[in-house]
């Protein structure tokens, strides 16, 4: 099923929880709604589910406006962060609850519940109550309950946030696999960018009730359209440095105090002559080298595979991912090589990218 959101807006009193959201979700597509808490992603999801009525704008399923369709007529399955299992019912009763409401014949009901339970690996737990299950098992029941009615669309509201890290990793893979196998259009709300990056076909980044960008994970990472997206996607986050880009002798230079770098022409020309701009560069695109910009190591944080190093260049500080075998120490002076083919430039006023927006 295709889902289209058109200028979708929800106000709670004077607060704009979600404003003017335009989004097209293709049939069978897996879209993540990503953003910090309170950015309106759950509000948007609940509008799609039919729990909240939009203040204005439209929600269309396969081109049909469904704004006033009650949740039960939308044929969606939803998985919640709190699992939202019915505590007084057994796993079997939880799974068959949606089918009972549809007046499915008893035998078919039992068959379908068993099939879904087996698929989710909870077939042996049918007689248990939710309180007797582990978090992971509860989440499987919740997922099974969403799937058992063969929905046209799956909605996920931070389904993995209550699981421990290891389980989250394996469930992540399972959900993605399941979604691909079943080909059900899915919308997945999360504040965890790793979840969004690894699972989704496309990520819609939201902030303060607005849709910031919607693109594939690679595009968001390599071609962020706004300062917010650039800073939000990627861990450790992108470094931002105020610079001025000038053209000298045919070359473009990004300059500030104690800082002068040559920028490739195709990126430099878009940032040149704009006064002060924000240069963005990811920690993995800076390397410790024999030549380059001089800075002093402020702190070294070992992450295992890499060391995360904070280097002060004049008044600016940048994060760098470095090889732990280098044995870097606090207070040491190092030289940094910036991979200028990967730099981003943003307008400090509009916070829009100078490279990827017109």
């Amino acid at each position: 099923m295709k889902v289209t959101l058109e200028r979708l807006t929800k106000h709670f009193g004077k607060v704009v929880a979600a404003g003017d959201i335009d989004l097209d979700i293709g049939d069978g597509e897996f879209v993540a709604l990503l953003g910090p808490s309170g950015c309106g992603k759950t509000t948007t999801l609940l509008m799609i589910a039919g729990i909240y009525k939009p203040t204005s704008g439209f929600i269309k399923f396969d081109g049909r406006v469904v704004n006033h369709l009650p949740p039960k007529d939308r044929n969606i399955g939803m998985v919640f962060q709190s699992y939202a299992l019915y505590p007084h019912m057994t796993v079997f009763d939880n799974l068959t609850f949606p089918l009972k409401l549809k007046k499915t014949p008893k035998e078919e009901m039992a068959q379908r519940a068993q099939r879904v339970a087996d698929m989710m690996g909870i077939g042996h737990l049918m007689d248990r109550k939710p309180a007797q299950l582990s978090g992971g098992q509860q989440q499987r029941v919740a997922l099974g309950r969403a799937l058992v009615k063969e929905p046209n669309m799956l909605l996920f509201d931070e389904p993995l946030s209550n699981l421990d890290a290891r389980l989250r990793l394996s469930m992540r893979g399972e959900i993605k696999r399941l979604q691909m196998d079943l080909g059900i259009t899915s919308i997945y709300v999360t504040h965890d960018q790793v979840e969004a990056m690894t699972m989704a076909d496309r990520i819609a980044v939201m902030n303060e009730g607005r849709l910031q960008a919607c693109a594939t994970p690679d595009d968001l990472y390599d071609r962020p359209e706004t300062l917010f997206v650039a800073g939000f996607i990627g861990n450790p986050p992108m470094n931002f440095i105020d610079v001025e880009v000038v053209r000298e002798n045919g070359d473009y230079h990004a300059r500030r105090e104690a800082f002068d770098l040559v920028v490739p022409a195709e990126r430099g020309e878009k940032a040149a002559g704009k006064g002060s701009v924000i240069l963005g560069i990811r920690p993995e695109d800076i390397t410790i080298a024999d030549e380059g910009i001089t800075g002093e190591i402020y702190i070294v944080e070992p992450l295992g595979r890499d060391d995360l190093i904070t280097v002060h260049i004049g008044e600016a500080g940048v994060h760098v991912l470095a090889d732990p075998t280098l044995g870097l120490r606090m207070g040491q002076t190092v030289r940094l090589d910036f991979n200028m083919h990967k730099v981003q430039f943003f307008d400090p006023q509009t916070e829009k990218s100078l490279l990827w927006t017109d």
Partner: protein
Amino acid sequence: MTWRQRVGKAIPYVLLIISIIPVTVGYLWLLISPFSTKTEGLRSLGWTLSNWSFLWKPPFGLNYPSIWRVTLNTFMVATSMAVFVVLVSSLAGYPLSRLKFAGRKSFLSLTLIVHAFPSVTLLIPIYFVLRFLHLFNTMVGVALVMVAFELPFGVWLMKGFFDNVSWDMERAALIDGASRFRVWWQIIIPTIKPGLAALAIFAFLSGWNAYLIPFTFTIGRAGKTAVLSVYLQNFQGDTVMTNWNMVTAVGLFQLIPVMFFFIFTQEYLLNIYAGGAKGGA
């Protein structure tokens, strides 16, 4: 432990013991007196079971109903209190907790004001209302008024319990295809069973012990035998010496069932303080 620390530890106990002495003495007397011909303080001047004769023969002549009839009446009033208070409160508490509608806030604060209103001041207007409804001097009328007085508390309590039920669960049920009523009945009500039990017990107990309302809205001989607490009143005649030993026997008789009831249900009753007071999401 030093001597000083020991004294420090003992002080709270000593204070508590001193403060419960009057209550304990009262209860002791209540246990001794019904089985005594006469008491001097806590000392029995002779043991007897004659004070319990009301159990097999009406103490005020055969025209008066037996205590068992009165007990049944009391039980009916208390049970209808429990049933109707729970029914109405849970039906009213749900929309007040979950739905948005005009006047919701003012309704809630109004309920609280009514709850804070001393019921004594309403006795006269209620008398006229009952007269108008032809329910004066009937048990239905008495039960109705008692249920009404209990409702503000019940509604607020239920609202508190509903507030604590996760929104996600309700949303899940709506998405699964349930109607609002089915969500209330099949999903929400079962999860707040402890709250319902607590309210039912509380209402039952206050129905069992009610005095003011049954006493005010019943008259004549039939009225004076309506419920146990009013029945007790009969023993304090204006012309005859009050047999206090028999009064305590009837009092103990009234107390025993609820005491057992309380012992078995106090765990649920505690939910009123543990569960209902918390704010909702």
